[in-house]
């Protein structure tokens, strides 16, 4: 089961896989077992009060965003979500069989009959070979097309087989489920099931060896109950939560408390979503795994993804712990280029002034689009805090590469980050006098 889901994460499977096989109708089955949001097989499917099913994580993220069911747009709350266990079993069963059925379906039509017969015969031989205790001839014959699925079925059965018993002269105690010597069973029961595991350390059921011997009983019968199920985290009212409270919550959870307020909120929200979705799972993941998932989020949507965008950049520069030396070192070339540009423009302006006067609009120009884009790392988003798209206003660019509509002159400066940047310049290089020159220059 675990293997199947791991494979699935690295391989893009799709319901259309069935369309070029004779089993086209399975495309519908395949599609029905997938979440409409992530297009993957349901993982921990949850049913909404409007009876739509989504992955726990998908629906929680979606509800966080707009509080509506993605399928029918009726209002929904996270609290109302319930596990759809039948769907989960169905998905797991289908996932287990999918690869084999697909492989079988892709075998060209003509050689199918002999191949199939042979594999069935072989499979039956396999069954004969395996121990009689494990044999489930009725089921195995009907359920498999290939040898490997045959084996999978047999193994799966033996795992859950309560009749299974090692032939070592012991029997299972009906009270404590420990293995006890057949001759001593009556005494064992009469004595009130004393702990005899010491005497039979090797005689525990398969699967129970990982847990301590003291817990052998529960792990034998119901291994999943042995896992301590995590408790759901409550949603936070962010408008009434102070910064230090939020930071403490993050630190308590073992998460980074770095970044501005907006990022802290986003990070904590995502953590709650990941955590609560994990609480629904039949086999909850460890906290470490969840942290790794948050790490991925951090890379794609969180702090490290947004650090380069304009609003974040301004915040970083204004931050108290901002490393000025590292920053000026990293952008040294950019600053030099800016200075060179500014000087060039200043000279150009002087010569321009002698020839013709600027129009009022030009001289009032607040924007400095020609100076700015010489910094290659800088992303000029109009607002975007998670905006990965580079929009540059380089005048040298051909018209087609420009923004798809023209900017009006009355707009505010493209971004205040240049102001702050120039502020840094100002402090570091003592260039204050040049800034005024830069501002009034026209593209």
């Amino acid at each position, binding site marked *: 089961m675990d293997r199947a889901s791991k494979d699935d994460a690295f391989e893009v499977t*799709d319901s*259309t896989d069935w369309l070029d096989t004779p089993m086209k109708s399975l495309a519908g089955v395949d599609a029905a077992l997938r979440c409409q949001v992530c297009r993957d097989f349901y993982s921990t499917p949850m049913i909404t009060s409007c009876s739509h099913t989504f992955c726990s994580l998908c629906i929680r993220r979606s509800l966080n965003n707009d509080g509506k069911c993605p399928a029918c747009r009726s209002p929904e709350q996270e609290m109302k979500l319930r596990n759809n266990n039948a769907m989960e079993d169905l998905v797991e069963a289908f996932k287990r069989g999918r690869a084999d059925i697909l492989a079988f379906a892709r075998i060209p039509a003509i050689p199918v009959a002999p191949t199939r017969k042979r594999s069935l015969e072989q499979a039956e031989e396999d069954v004969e070979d395996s121990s009689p205790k494990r044999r489930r001839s009725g089921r195995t014959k009907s359920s498999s097309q290939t040898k490997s699925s045959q084996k999978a079925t047999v193994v799966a059965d033996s795992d859950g087989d309560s009749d299974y018993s090692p032939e070592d002269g012991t029997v299972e105690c009906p009270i404590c489920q420990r293995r006890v010597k057949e001759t001593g069973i009556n005494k064992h029961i009469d004595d009130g099931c004393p702990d005899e595991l010491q005497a039979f350390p090797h005689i525990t059921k398969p699967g129970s060896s990982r847990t301590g011997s003291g817990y052998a009983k529960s792990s034998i019968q119901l291994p999943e109950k042995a896992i301590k199920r995590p408790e759901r985290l409550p949603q936070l009212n962010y408008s009434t939560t102070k910064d230090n409270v939020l930071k403490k919550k993050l630190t308590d959870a073992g998460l980074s408390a770095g970044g501005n307020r907006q990022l802290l909120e986003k990070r904590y929200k995502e953590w709650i979503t990941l955590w609560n979705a994990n609480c629904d799972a039949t086999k909850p993941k460890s906290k470490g795994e969840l942290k790794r998932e948050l790490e991925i989020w951090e890379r794609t949507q969180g702090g490290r993804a947004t650090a380069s965008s304009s609003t974040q950049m301004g915040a970083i520069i204004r931050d108290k712990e901002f490393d000025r030396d590292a920053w000026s070192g990293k952008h040294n070339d950019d600053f030099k280029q800016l200075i060179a540009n500014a000087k060039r423009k200043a000279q150009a302006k002087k010569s321009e002034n002698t020839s013709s006067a600027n129009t009022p609009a030009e001289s009032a120009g607040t924007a400095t689009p020609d100076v700015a884009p010489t910094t290659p790392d800088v992303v000029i988003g109009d607002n975007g805090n998670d905006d990965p798209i580079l929009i540059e206003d380089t005048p040298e660019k051909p018209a087609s590469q420009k923004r798809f*509509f023209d900017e009006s002159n009355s707009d505010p400066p493209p971004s205040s980050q240049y102001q702050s940047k120039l502020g840094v310049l100002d402090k570091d290089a003592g260039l204050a006098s040049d800034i005024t020159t830069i501002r009034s220059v026209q593209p």
Partner: protein
Amino acid sequence: MAFATKRLGKELTKLHGSLPPGIELVSAEGFEEWLLDIKVLDANPLYLNQTYRLKFKFSPSYPIEPPEVTFVNTKDRPIPMHPHIYSNGIICLDLLGSQGWTPIQNVESICMSLQSMLTGNTKNERPEGDQLFVANNRRRPRDIDFYYHDNTV
């Protein structure tokens, strides 16, 4: 694998495999920006024998957040005439805004919605205030608060 990438990967395999008539994948390099061509299939004289190019931009929060979809103007790909399509290619359509978007929409369904939006149109006109908007707008489509009033399209 990140959420958006995984889902877009699935959509892409589907797009490479089979597409509804009148929709064509032009380029999909990476998972940030895709180009698709759409055609209007019926005999609507406004769009006869024309192909239009659509640009999809995906954020890392796709499909929780809608993609940014605009028409692109190139040499043989004009911006279609429509009372809800500005001459700079920005489309005023509720399902592309955060209010109308749902994560179960996808690239294919957006293309089909736009096809039908064009098919149903009879007015050879731009939206009210097109000139002003095109001249002044410097926001990205997702930040514009459109007022969706017209239910006929």
